[in-house]
């Protein structure tokens, strides 16, 4: 689904995250990049250098907003002030779609600043979907929700993660930001088949994909975003692309960030798998 109603009917290609160590390279060299993903919260400020930098980027590039604090799964109601800030930023960036995570992370206004996994219950799905609808209606931009990587599962869960994701996006009538690396990480931590996950989500709702690196430990895998993408994740990405079509794809590299060229070249590896998926489709 290269362009659909969940990504504002935009046929975006391969992008990378806009990160501080690359600012001066991007502004001085103006490299060719299809689009940048920004962390919304980094620019939900009142003024100063962040907004100046953003405006300079917007003069040259297409930008998509990705959030880390909406906490669709938290019981707290969306904060109107927060939503207004988000809407103002969306109008500034003209982001075709907004994404945030299918998780929780705040309780009664206290924030953990983490993306905590949810109990996969029908009640949680209904509540989460309602919150997604409220946010979309306020901000007036299509929303894609991202599956998170996780290290814990709950006794309370009534379904699998992919069933929960499907339930939420169908109830909310929103898109999916399919993080292929997160599926892989969680599949290892929770011993499920990542291909079964991919096969059983509503492919037509995928508006964007994420790939990233992770770190293996003896008993679990952490979603560290500090490495190149590993082969099993690229294989999953290829499978996802065959199922969902060629989607806007973004490489996340957030720690031990190498040069701009290294990050961009790593992201462009996705082209190999996109080409493969296209040939397979012919």
């Amino acid at each position, binding site marked *: 689904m290269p362009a659909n109603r969940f990504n504002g009917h935009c046929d975006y290609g391969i992008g990378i995250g806009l990160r501080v160590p690359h600012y001066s390279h991007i502004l001085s060299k103006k490299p060719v990049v299809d689009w940048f993903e920004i962390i919304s919260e980094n620019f939900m*400020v*009142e*003024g100063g250098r962040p907004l100046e930098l953003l405006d300079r980027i917007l003069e040259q590039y297409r930008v998509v907003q990705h959030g880390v604090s909406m906490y669709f799964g938290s019981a707290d109601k969306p904060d109107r002030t927060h939503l207004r800030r988000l809407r103002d930023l969306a109008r500034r960036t003209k982001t075709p779609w907004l994404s945030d995570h299918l998780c929780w992370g*705040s309780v009664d206004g*206290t*924030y953990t600043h983490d993306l905590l996994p949810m109990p996969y219950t029908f009640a949680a799905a209904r509540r989460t979907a309602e919150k997604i609808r409220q946010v979309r209606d306020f901000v007036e931009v299509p929303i894609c929700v991202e599956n998170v990587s996780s290290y*814990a*599962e709950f*006794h309370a869960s009534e379904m699998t993660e992919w069933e929960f994701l499907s339930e939420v996006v169908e109830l909310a009538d929103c898109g999916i930001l399919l993080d292929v690396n997160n599926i892989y990480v969680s599949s290892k931590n929770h011993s499920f088949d990542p291909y079964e996950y991919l096969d059983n989500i509503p492919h037509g709702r995928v508006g964007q994909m994420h790939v990233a690196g992770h770190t293996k430990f003896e008993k679990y895998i952490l979603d560290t975003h500090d490495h190149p993408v590993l082969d099993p994740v690229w294989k999953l990405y290829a499978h996802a692309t065959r199922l969902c079509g060629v989607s806007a794809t973004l490489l996340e590299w957030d720690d031990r960030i190498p040069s701009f060229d290294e990050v961009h070249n790593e992201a462009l590896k996705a082209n190999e798998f996109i080409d493969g998926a296209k040939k397979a489709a012919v």
Partner: protein
Amino acid sequence: MMAAAVVRPLDANDNLQSRWIDGRPMGDVAAEFIKPNDRLTSFERLELYNRMYWYRLLDAIRDDCPGLLAALGEAAFGRLAQAYLAKRPSRSFTLRNLCSRLEAFIREHPRFTAPRTALAAEIARFEWAQTVAFDGESRPVVSAASLARTPPARLRLGLQPYVTLLALRYPVDAYVTSVKRRDAMRSEASNTPDSNIVHRHAARRSRLPRPLRTFLAVHRLDNRLYYKRLEPEAFRILGALALGATLARAVAAGGRAATPAKVKGWFTTWMALGWFCAAGNKRRARAS
């Protein structure tokens, strides 16, 4: 339950505490809501999130407070940061605001910083002022022409929200600058051929400042951070304006030492820096 467990302080060995608040074994409590798997117990899975929470937030405070870290040292800073986060967990969607209440916490709980509580509080205040100056709100600048239209007895001016006025007992601006310079040299050292020399120099601890009454404006210009030292009279004038005084009263607050020539020079500079906006909410200049 999960949220309370995630934000609960780690034990002395950076592990999830072995007992829950009510005294029950934490393993039993975790097992009530988290499934174990074939490699990790419920306790261990919860511990991952507990550690990640603390490591993430403690890292964020370190990044925002290099001066405070240098002044207190690793151990005392760690105790302060952990106590602060335990008592004042984040109430903001962004880590940017994490240290907004740190100065008040230091003053309310002096045992974490004794015998340097006054200095520590001033450094925390100064470092928070830098955050405000970095990305605080900027309002339309009042033009000289509009100033000329209103008589001083009626004219009120606001101070840009990103400008913080600080009356300090210590010259913390010079201290924090020296700490940052030292930290920059440390990070450069690994790329320097004669790194031993640089390391020895860089490893020297920045000397703690001696008391020196200091009046500062922390602000930005062309989106770069600056600290501007102010004469006491100039500070009083700006403070009075920030509190909502008319221009005439604010200038009078400067006292006799604020001669007409000095006042004219100060206002010329402040106007050039874009510090004045339309009067709005009253703000308090911060003094120790």
